[in-house]
């Protein structure tokens, strides 16, 4: 919202701060200065200050709102330009409200005998500062008051209307033509202005051609209303029409402010275009805005700030901001001004005091010494961090990618028993689905690197993959690893094993995959298991490209705690003995070795498979067992026992 420096000084007599100082004060107090530039207005040098107005301060989307803020900050008073209007006793008949749930307050004046004309130069110049084009004097005055007070209004040519002006919920009209001749299709249930035959406007958003004010307009209706802001927002978004009016009316504007705004507008219309008010204005105000009273222990202000702010100071600030304050010991009872719809609880009041007191007065160079709190860092996070370090050390580069893909890609790379998850409104219609594997991301990166002649490709990513089982949405933290190399699958297997061993898993095994991704070589595709639980998959994609994926969420939960087991004090030298074992071809050597490990227990240093030899229906395995903590004799005894020699 913009304001001329000259207008600010006019509304806040005694204001001495420079534009720069005002900009700084507003910025620190919650309305950030966007821009300040020199302008010429009414042949005089001036400054136009533009502020970013926060979402909950609809009152500041006006010159008056900003002037009140300035007055509050500097302990001055904002001079409001009030006029007295002569209101006749005769009741008007031209207006009604049917949309009872959507209209909080409505005011309408009928003025007869106006003489519309082109606006004077200063008004055109003023409106241009706010990027509003001049139309004619009546319309321009309506826009001027909107800028000045924050309250939009709508003027209708009564002579073009057929019947009563009515606020209604649209049931009948399929189409509407706006003032700038745009045709809008209406799905139904919008809040509209209509007469007995025609739709006259989209309430709170934009007026229509049907009762447009032109230079010949003589008898007019001036309406201002406050709506249920959710309805205005909904209509504005669904019809894709955003106007200065809708931007204000979709926020929380005080219904009480309508009186001042309408007073100013009617006064100006009568002054500038002539005309008479012949009937009482229409007023619809079923539920009056309550006046709030908020209780607050003034000591809390210092608690929130962390510095001492005396009760007297707090009261002074609140009074400057037009709050009514009464004291009783440490307790304050405050009533916020009615236009401050953002004040509802004592925390809001505390914020008011501290922001005007000045955030810059609160020291920031003292880091707090807080109480010790429970350690909540999850195993998955610790696990992921360690995995990153291990992979980086062994030469893998981390990438991050976006998780949207398409169903077809998911069906190529998925290896889990779950269904696809789609978004309703993906940023890219080509990729509406959430990835089920990290593979597509790493493959994409691989292709990009090849295009750019990057070699030695070893990549990993830790990120979420998503799926659905029945009505349950699932996601897991997943580690994907990709390598390009002449011996890709073996190098990848080594990397996976270094990773798992370093993370405390030494019972690693591989089984042919149950679900094979379509991009995998089906003859080179295994599920990775630790302690008999499947935690991931490893497969060859083509001659020199292999991929592995590990479910970090699951694996981290399988991790055992810190162990002292790997540390050994050597009393004897290692005793290294070989044995040959013959197993039927149907039997996997993995479980056999696992059993050996169990049997030998703490005295096992290592088991290595050093040779395999195919026999008829059997395979002979040569196994080297290294024993620790045993003498030669003891080791030989154990060796004979476990290998049945």
């Amino acid at each position, binding site marked *: 919202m913009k304001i001329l420096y000259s207008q600010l000084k006019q509304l806040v007599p005694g204001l001495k701060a420079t534009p720069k100082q005002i900009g700084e004060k507003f910025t*620190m107090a919650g309305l950030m200065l966007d821009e300040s530039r020199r302008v010429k207005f009414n042949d005089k040098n001036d400054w136009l200050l533009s502020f970013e107005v926060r979402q*909950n301060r609809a009152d500041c989307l006006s010159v008056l709102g900003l002037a009140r803020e300035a007055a509050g900050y500097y302990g001055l008073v904002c001079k409001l330009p009030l006029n007295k209007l002569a209101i006749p006793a005769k009741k008007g008949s031209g207006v009604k409200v049917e949309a009872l749930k959507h209209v909080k307050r409505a005011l309408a004046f009928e003025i007869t005998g106006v003489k519309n004309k082109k606006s004077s130069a200063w008004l055109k110049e003023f409106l241009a500062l706010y990027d509003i084009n001049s139309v004619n004097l009546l319309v321009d005055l309506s826009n001027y008051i909107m800028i000045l007070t924050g309250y939009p209004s709508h003027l209708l040519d009564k002579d073009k209307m057929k019947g009563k002006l009515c606020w209604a919920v649209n049931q009948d009209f399929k189409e509407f033509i706006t003032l700038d001749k745009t045709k809008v299709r209406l799905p139904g249930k919008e809040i509209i202005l209509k007469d007995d035959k025609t739709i006259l406007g989209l309430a709170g958003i934009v007026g229509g051609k049907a009762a447009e004010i032109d230079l010949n307009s003589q008898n007019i209706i001036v309406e201002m209303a406050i709506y249920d802001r959710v309805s205005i927002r909904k209509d504005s978004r669904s019809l894709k029409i955003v106007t200065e009016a809708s931007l204000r009316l979709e926020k929380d504007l005080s219904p009480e402010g309508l009186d001042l705004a309408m007073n100013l507008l009617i006064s100006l219309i009568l002054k500038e275009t002539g005309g008479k008010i012949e009937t009482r204005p229409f007023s619809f105000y079923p539920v009056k805005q309550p006046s709030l009273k908020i209780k607050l222990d003034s000591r809390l202000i210092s608690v929130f700030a962390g510095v001492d702010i005396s009760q007297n100071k707090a009261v002074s600030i609140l009074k400057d901001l037009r709050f009514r304050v009464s004291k009783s010991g440490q307790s304050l009872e405050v009533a916020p001004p009615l236009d401050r719809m953002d004040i509802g609880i004592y*925390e809001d009041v*505390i914020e008011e005091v501290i922001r005007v007191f000045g955030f810059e007065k609160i*020291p920031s160079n003292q880091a707090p010494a807080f109480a010790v*709190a429970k350690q909540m860092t999850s195993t998955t996070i610790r696990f992921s961090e360690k995995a990153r370090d291990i992979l980086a050390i062994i030469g893998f*580069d981390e990438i991050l990618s976006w998780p949207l893909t398409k169903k077809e890609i998911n069906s190529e790379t998925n290896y889990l028993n779950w269904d696809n*998850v789609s978004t*309703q409104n993906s940023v890219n219609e080509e990729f509406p689905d959430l990835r089920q594997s990290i593979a597509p991301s790493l493959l994409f990166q691989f292709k990009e690197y090849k295009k750019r002649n990057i070699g030695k490709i070893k990549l990993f990513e830790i990120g*979420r993959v998503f799926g659905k089982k029945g009505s349950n949405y699932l996601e897991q933290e997943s580690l994907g690893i990709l390598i390009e190399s002449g011996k890709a699958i073996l190098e990848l297997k080594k990397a996976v094993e270094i990773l798992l061993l370093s993370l405390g898993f030494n019972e690693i095994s591989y089984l042919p995959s149950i679900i094979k991704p379509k991009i995998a070589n089906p003859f080179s595709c295994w599920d990775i298991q630790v302690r008999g639980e499947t935690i991931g998959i490893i497969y060859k994609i083509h001659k020199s490209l292999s991929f592995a994926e590990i479910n970090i969420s699951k694996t981290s939960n399988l991790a055992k705690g810190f162990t002292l087991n790997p540390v050994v004090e050597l009393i004897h030298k290692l005793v290294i003995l070989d044995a040959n074992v013959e197993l039927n071809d149907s039997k996997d050597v993995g479980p056999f070795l696992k059993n050996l490990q169990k049997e030998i227990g703490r005295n096992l240093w290592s088991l290595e498979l050093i040779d395999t030899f195919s026999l008829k229906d059997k395979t002979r395995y040569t196994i080297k067992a290294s024993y620790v903590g045993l003498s030669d004799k003891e080791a030989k005894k154990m060796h004979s026992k476990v290998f049945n020699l």
Partner: protein
Amino acid sequence: MLETDLKLIKNESEKDMAAVKTTADLDNIFNKYLGSQGQIKQLFKEMKDLPEDKRKEIGVNINGLQKKIIDLIDSKKKELLTGHLAKTMEAEAETLSFDLPKIGHLHPITQTIRMLNKVFIEMGYSIVDGPEIETNEYNFTRLNVPADHPAMDMQDTIYIKEPNLLLRTQTSSVESRIMAGNKPPMKFVCPGRVYRNEKVNKSNHFVFHHYQGAAILEKVSLKDLFGTLDLLFKRMYGSKVIVRYRNKYYPEVEPGVGADMQCFNCKGRGRSDPDGSSDPMGCPLCKGVGWIEMGGAGIIHPNVMKMAGIDSKKFMGFAFGLGLDRWVMAKYNITDIRTLLGGNLAYKYYENENSF
């Protein structure tokens, strides 16, 4: 005669020593002269039959010869071993190849998160995360975002094909889960990925990264919050960094705070040079403002506390949130936000960031 034998043994031992080629030869010489059946031992035996005065003289000579043979054997052994070692070493020698191993790298976002985590871990904070598919309740409602808030529009949020499920738009959703599932005192940070319905271009992406955190204790204040953030900014940017804290509105906090860092390009002037000739539109980094918005913070709103089941009369909290991607881009000289999520982000094979 013993003296003659001594002379003969001496000459022979010298000849034998000269012919030694291996350590096995030396072993043979040892056995021949110094072994239990060796010639020197024989001389000592024969010496017994001599008169005492002769025994003494011969004994000295025999001992002298024994010592000489021992010394010769020792020095020859050393010579042989050194020579053998040198030959072996030459045979086993390898040359160095000029091939450096490729080292791996962590993503700039990971590295930045780690730097931030380090600061908070030192202050006793935990690192937490939560689901990326979130409900309206945890992403909005429990953060005091009203049902009609603009952020909930389809234009702003990516929804799953299911009512009330969305991709989280902020990691404050994790904050609302942690607050609901634990009792104070709590101190945690929740770095993570978030999603907004944004058109993807050079400066915007629909996937980006937040770093949020909260501390819920018996008493906290804005001074504590500012002190915490100051510490963070100083650790990230050096002790001379200038930060300001101003009032700013966020639904989940009250009072709300915006944290700005003085633009390090124009030093707060809003222009890179004093007369503005090189950038008439203002400093390109801060767009002429003189300050760079770093994030938001504030004292946790009582509604948020209430929905988490925490009594705001007994406990207070502060929360803060920083957008990470622009930090990372500024730090690593990345000009296009899309680079952070794949495609043209690459790492030099042999250089490391030296972050230890």
